[in-house]
Structures are given as C-alpha cells and as structure tokens.
C-alpha cells in the first residue's frame, strides 16, 4: 500500500510532530513498506470469523468507590519537563 505525502503530513499534524521535507520522504517509504507488509493478512479469508477485540473472555472488573492516598506534589511532578508552583507548565495552548 502506497501512502502519500499528504497522509504523512496529516498524521504528523494529528500527532503534533513537525517533519522536515527529508523526513516526510523517508516516512512515506517506511510507512508504505510497513502497511504493505501488514496487508498480507488480507489474503486470509475471515468471512466466518467474528471480530475479536478482547482476548481474555473476562468481563465486569470493577473497584469500589473508595478513596486512596494521592501522590505528593513532588512525586507527581518528579518527571515533568516543566512546572510552576503546584502546576504543570505547558506551551501556551490558546491562540
């Protein structure tokens, strides 16, 4: 399956990734190869096979509505790239 540069740009936009022209070119080939490889599965006749979503055949796993101890702020923020006070700091998102 051949995917286009347009597809690559679209997926990159959805993933908030900036790609250079060279990278776009590279990923067109790489992703097309991957999809072609996976496409092999289409050769299999699945007319009589139900879609399978969950493989465990287990249902209804719940927890009670019981409070548990939250993380301390310093632990919550331990791996955050940027913080301000108790907040996580991110690039401006509106406008």
């Amino acid at each position, binding site marked *: 399956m051949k995917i286009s540069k347009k597809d690559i740009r*679209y997926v990159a*936009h*959805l*993933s*908030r990734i900036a790609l250079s022209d060279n990278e776009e070119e590279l990923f067109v080939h790489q992703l097309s190869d991957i999809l072609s490889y996976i496409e092999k599965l289409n050769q299999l006749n699945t007319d009589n096979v139900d879609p399978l*979503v*969950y493989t*465990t055949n*287990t*249902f*209804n*796993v*719940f*927890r*009670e*509505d*019981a*409070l*548990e*101890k*939250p*993380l301390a*702020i310093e632990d*919550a*923020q331990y*791996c955050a790239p*940027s913080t*301000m*006070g*108790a*907040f*996580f*700091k*991110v*690039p*401006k*998102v*509106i*406008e």
Partner: protein
Amino acid sequence: MKYEVVIGLETHSELATATKLFCGCSTKFGADPNTQVCPVCLAMPGVLPVMNKKAFEYAMKSAAALCCKIDNYTNFDRKSYYYPDLPKNYQISQNYHNLGVDGFMDIEVKGTVKRIRIHNVHLEEEAGKLIHPEETGADYSLVDFNRAGVPLLEIVSYPDMRTVDEVESYMQTLRKMLLYTEISDCKMQEGSLRFEASISLRLKGVETLGNRVEIKNLNSMKFVIKAIEYEATRQAELLDRGETIDRETRLWDEINEKSVRMRSKEEAQDYRYFPEPDLLPVLIDEKWLSTIKSSIPELPFARKQRFVSEFKLSDYDANLLIEDKVLADFFEECVRGLNRPKILCNWITNDLLREAKERKLEIGQLKVKPAQLVSLVEIVEKGTISSTTAKEVFIEMIQTGKDPQKIVEEKGLIQISDEGLIGSVIDKIISGNPGVIDDYKKGKKNALTFLVGQVMKETKGKANPKMVNELLKGKLDV
C-alpha cells in the same frame, strides 16, 4: 422568521462519586492544584485503569431514567486527541457500544408536553483544567489534573428542540432528573453540569437539516439561551444574503455576547476511536439492570402530574414543590400525617421557603419537621390558636425546633373561644366607640372590620376571629 431553528443539546455531568472513574483519587471540588492525582490519572507509564462500580451504576441509572435501550454488552473506546488537559493524549470514552441509546425525556412548555428523544448516554472521563495566565505575552499555560479522570456522563439529545423555551425546559427537566436520582450535584458554577448546543436553520416546511454549528463554553443556562438566540440570528442573516453555513464549532464569548469560531483544538477532528484495550467490557444482566431501575425514584415530571391529580394542587403549586426533591418529600410526609394538601402546600411554598431563603438554609437543614407543621395546622383547625398567631408560632418553630403545642403553652397563645369572655370585650368596645357604631348602622362596611380589629387588639390577638365577627354582628344587628 421564515426559518425554523433546530436545536440539539449535549450535556456533560460530573457524577457524584467520592473517587475518580479509574482510580481512587478524590473528586472533591476546590482542592489545591494537583493534590488529587495519582499515577493512573497522571498517565504514568505502566498504569492500568480500573472502573469505579458506582460511577458505572450511576450511568446505568441515568440511561434507564432517560428510557434508553440498554444493551447487555458495553465497552469503552479511546478517543485520541492531543491536548494538555489529557495526560494520556486520549480520553477513555464510549463510541461503538454506548451504554444507553434511543431514549427520551418528556418536557413541558406552557402546559404542553413534548417528547425530546435522547440519542445516547455514555460514560467517559473528565479532562484536567487549563489555566491561561492573564499577563500579556505569557507563552505558557498551567495544568491542574485534579479534575482529570472524574467520571463524566454525556447525554446527547436528538435535534428535537425548536425554541429557546423548549431548550430551557429541557435543561431544567434534565437537571432535576439528575438531582432526583442523586447522580450529580449539578453545580453549574463548579462545572459539574455543562451544556453544548448545536444549532441549524432550515426554511419552514423543509425536511432536510441545515449545516449545524456547535457552540461550546456555555457556563450557565442563561448563556445557552443567549448563544442560541445569537446564533439563530447570525445564521439567518447569512442565509438571507445567500451564503452557506459552515459546519463548525464556535465558542461563546460571554463578555461580548457573541459566538466566535474556535481554533486549534478542533481544527482536525479525527479522534481515531478504537476499543480501549486496558478496560474489559461490561455485561449487564437483567437482574442487575432491574436492581438499578428499582433505585430510580419517581421523577419530577411524573411527580408534578401526580401532585396535581392526587392532591388537587394547581400546576403552579405543584411545580414549586417538585423543584427540590427534599421539599416535595417534606410535603408528602406532611400530607400523610394530615390530609389537607392545599393548606400544607401554602405553608410550605410561602412560609417555609421564605424562611429557608432568608436564613440561606437548605430545606433539610431547617429545624421544623413535617410532623410539627402538621400539628401546627391541626391546632389552627381545632381553633386552639388563630391563623395570625400560627404565623408567629411558625417563626418560633423555625428558630427553636420546638413543637407548636409547647410554644403555644409557654407563650400563653391559646385562642380565646369563651363566648362570655369575648362578649364582655365586645361590650366594652361598643360602648367606647359610639361614632363607629353609628357609621355601621348607616351601612359603612369597614366599620365592622375596625371593631373586630379593636376586639382583637384588646385580646392581644388571642380571640377567635370567627367568633368575634359573629358575636359582634349579633350584638349590632339587634
């Protein structure tokens, strides 16, 4: 207007559970930022969500209360979008097997009942809160994840509403349903109840729907109405000029009272839903569903209609009573004690509500209990105290929580119904007011009222007014 306005509403309601949907963090509103977070709701690597049973059952309850079809199988799906209020970069929601579908809710507008169809009811997780600093030139936003993962119910109506009155009634009816079933606290100021409207216009008589515009950021019911009115006018003007309506999402700007095209987040709406592999599907059997259904109380609309038919109350009175479930329960408990619905209703909707409002208290916090109000009405009916005195006793009951009989005894408020005693007071008043007596004899009606007033004053309001009236007339008309 030559156009018909077609309106649908999406409602988000935070569920009244103690903990979040997939972890044991508190859902309490107003805590310091990021103090109600854990590895699960912060989406740290390797964590797994586990469904809060109560949240799931609340969602079932609401789907059942909205008369939805509830399939015996439901599962959850990932809705992918990159936005920093969601630490996972996807929201766990439902798309392919919504918990409830094809329901309805009856609303009432100016005495006419209309059925609004419900497209679906589903359960999802709430996003975190973004704070945009006010300083100019700030190139960052701040995130508080306390709210991330709070159970959120989404109720999507069909575009069955045509007027803002219908929208108003839909919002109020839905809100009351959520309060009656105790699914949500519905505090709009805290964001636990939110609405988004979709609006399209079409020429009257035309079947096909026009392009719809969604409006977000509607923080109160008042804004919903304003935004719909604004949007209908905007679209009508565009159509009149021969322009087309773009299918888009707009934000309500409450300061300038207009809708503006929303940017960034919605530009590429491709959520790439797929079944959430980290959560197992849920099977709902008949027994479980019927247990949930039996936990649904009589809903406000049905209750109002019953109040009108069973207790012969006016629509107005019944509406006042059902506005608050606790108030309606208070009323019904009173009526069970004494079958005087109208009188009890008057006490509750006038006196009780007024006192609660003045004291800024919920009905449940008032010291007066239904049995005490019943006693008060009984002693008035027996003639022990006058209705004027009863008002005084009622205030005392509100203040102290004492039984009315006790207050009457302590304050010596028992009504004087002794004919001889009242008669002697009347004689005194008659001899002291010869001029007024003449007026009465000449046919002046308010002369009698004045004389009754004098007798009541003389007895410090304790004389039985009905007896005073009769005895006075008897003596004057000789």
